[in-house]
């Protein structure tokens, strides 16, 4: 894809041009211009942090509308395991899946079930000899994109396996094609997502040519419908396919727990993820084989498109996990034909923070940048529209901003001018000078 697709976008009308989002963006991808928070497309990693922090709800995620479902002959829904944490514990997983199906789908396939396939492949891969550690999970697309723009040295560490969503979509579609004797295009596969990053993964995947998912609908958008069905529904179908290892993926640490090793590190929240990736990049993490890094606090349960508070959701999910444990279903049986889940595309470094292609020019610019930064007040107030004084200095060097964008600098200039004006005002041209009363002239 030549242009950038982003799920995270701005609702112009709601944006008041405040500084909340610019200051929290992990890639400094937002600037306020003309009272609106503009996203710099090439920098945005769709982590959804801005959606979460905007007090005016002006940052939103574009997802597909439910109407899209009806454009397909056969409709399959593949819910993220985080969906189970959104509803009261009295509803079993089968209840929830049935209620979801009743919204108008012909078939349900749990993404959690595909997660188990990814876990299995990862387990195998970790135990291969000569492996470069630590491996970094690719489950969170925002983290993969973060690595692309900020941690080029870690691209090799990414575990290059398809996401559970992709695996699920492929399996579900293949199954239906065989069972119902339908063509690929007649089947619509819809992912129910907790986040914006997944939407971007479907519209502009980095790991493959195109996604197997037909559409992405947010948990938020199906929540009410599912809840209504849950209230009305009397019986439920037996739809569950996943064991607790798969469901657990919705939690931070869930993916790691399935690997059968203690040498893992699970980190959640994009800013904490950055700290850990710094450690890895500097070779400072010892004895860690696997890193599960998730952009949202609390993992996918904390996704910006979920309804329930992530801590509440975690408790609820635990009940589903325990239930599966009671039935002693760790993971479901899988055919080995799904074993090959390697990425077909290549993830590359995106040097979007680079000052110039020519290093000599870049050094010159950096020197100017340093000087400008030294002159700025260092308050990082954000009133200029950039997240920090240094970011403003960068923007100036890049030609995207002026020093007077800084309110303090502007005030200095105004003051200088005012002093100059006062000085000029005090000077009286001789022809107008009446004060001395025309001395010596009668």
């Amino acid at each position, binding site marked *: 894809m030549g242009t950038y697709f982003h799920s995270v976008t701005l609702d112009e009308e709601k944006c008041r041009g405040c500084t909340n989002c610019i200051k929290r963006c992990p890639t400094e991808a937002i600037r306020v211009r003309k009272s609106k928070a503009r996203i710099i497309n090439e920098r945005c990693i769709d982590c959804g942090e801005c959606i979460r922090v905007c007090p005016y709800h002006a940052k939103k995620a574009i997802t597909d509308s439910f109407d899209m479902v009806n454009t397909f002959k056969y409709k399959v829904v593949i819910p993220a395991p985080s969906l189970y944490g959104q509803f009261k514990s009295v509803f079993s997983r089968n209840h929830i899946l049935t209620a979801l199906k009743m919204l108008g789908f012909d078939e349900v396939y749990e993404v959690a079930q595909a997660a188990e396939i990814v876990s299995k492949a990862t387990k195998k891969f970790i135990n291969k000899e000569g492996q470069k550690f630590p491996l970094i999970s690719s489950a969170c697309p925002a983290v993969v994109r973060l690595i692309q723009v900020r941690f080029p*040295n870690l691209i090799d560490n990414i575990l290059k396996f398809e996401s559970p969503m992709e695996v699920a979509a492929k399996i579900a579609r293949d199954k239906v094609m065989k069972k119902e004797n339908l063509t690929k295009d007649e089947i619509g596969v819809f992912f129910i997502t907790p986040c914006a990053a997944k939407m971007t993964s479907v519209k502009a995947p980095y790991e493959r040519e195109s996604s197997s998912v037909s559409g992405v609908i947010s948990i938020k958008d199906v929540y009410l419908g599912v809840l209504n069905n849950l209230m009305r529904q009397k019986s439920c179908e037996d739809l569950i396919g996943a064991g607790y290892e798969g469901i657990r993926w919705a939690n931070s640490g869930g993916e790691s727990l399935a690997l059968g090793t203690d040498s893992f590190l699970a980190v959640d929240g994009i800013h904490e993820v950055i700290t850990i990736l710094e450690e890895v990049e500097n070779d400072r993490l010892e004895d860690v084989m696997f890193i599960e890094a998730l952009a949202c606090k609390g993992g996918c349960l904390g996704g910006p498109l979920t309804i329930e508070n992530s801590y509440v959701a975690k408790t609820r999910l635990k009940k589903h996990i325990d239930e599966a444990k009671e039935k002693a279903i760790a993971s479901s049986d899988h055919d080995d034909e799904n074993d090959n889940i390697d990425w077909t595309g290549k993830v590359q470094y995106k040097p979007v923070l*680079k*000052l110039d*292609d020519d*290093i000599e020019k870049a*050094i010159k610019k*950096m*020197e100017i940048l340093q000087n400008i930064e030294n002159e700025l007040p260092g308050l990082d107030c954000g009133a200029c529209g950039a997240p920090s004084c240094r970011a403003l200095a960068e923007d100036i060097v890049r030609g995207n901003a002026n020093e007077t964008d800084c309110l303090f600098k502007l005030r200095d200039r105004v003051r200088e001018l005012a002093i100059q004006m006062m000085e000029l005002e005090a000077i009286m041209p001789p022809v107008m000078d009446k004060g001395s009363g025309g001395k010596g002239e009668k």
Partner: protein
Amino acid sequence: MTEGCLELNYDIPANDFLHAGEASSSVKKMLNQLGVDPDKVKKTAISMYEAEINAVIHADGGAAHIEIWKDKVVIKICDKGPGIPNVELAMQEGYTTAPDHVRDMGFGAGMGLPNMKRYADSLDIDTAVGKGTTVTITVFLK
């Protein structure tokens, strides 16, 4: 300011393990912005970090002076610490003189100098017992 070269200076605070490494991480960020090859950025960042930490552990901090040229990065870390009596011994992996409380924090495992040597293209150690140490690390960018 020398033409064609970016000079940077940082203070390395004494006994401050929380903020130790800030200078190298700020240099790392800049090198990325300059478009330096990621591999070279890593070499520079790690070797500088080790030198920085050494100054914190052994010498009550010091000063870092960095020159970034189009074809190389030169890092000078100076301290007024105790000096290194036997450089050859100090270069051995696992050899350490770091006190226990430092080692308890996960630092001072005797990998500092060996790591510097491993990641730097050239490493020069100028040390005098009782006077201090200056470590000069060069990483070539081409």
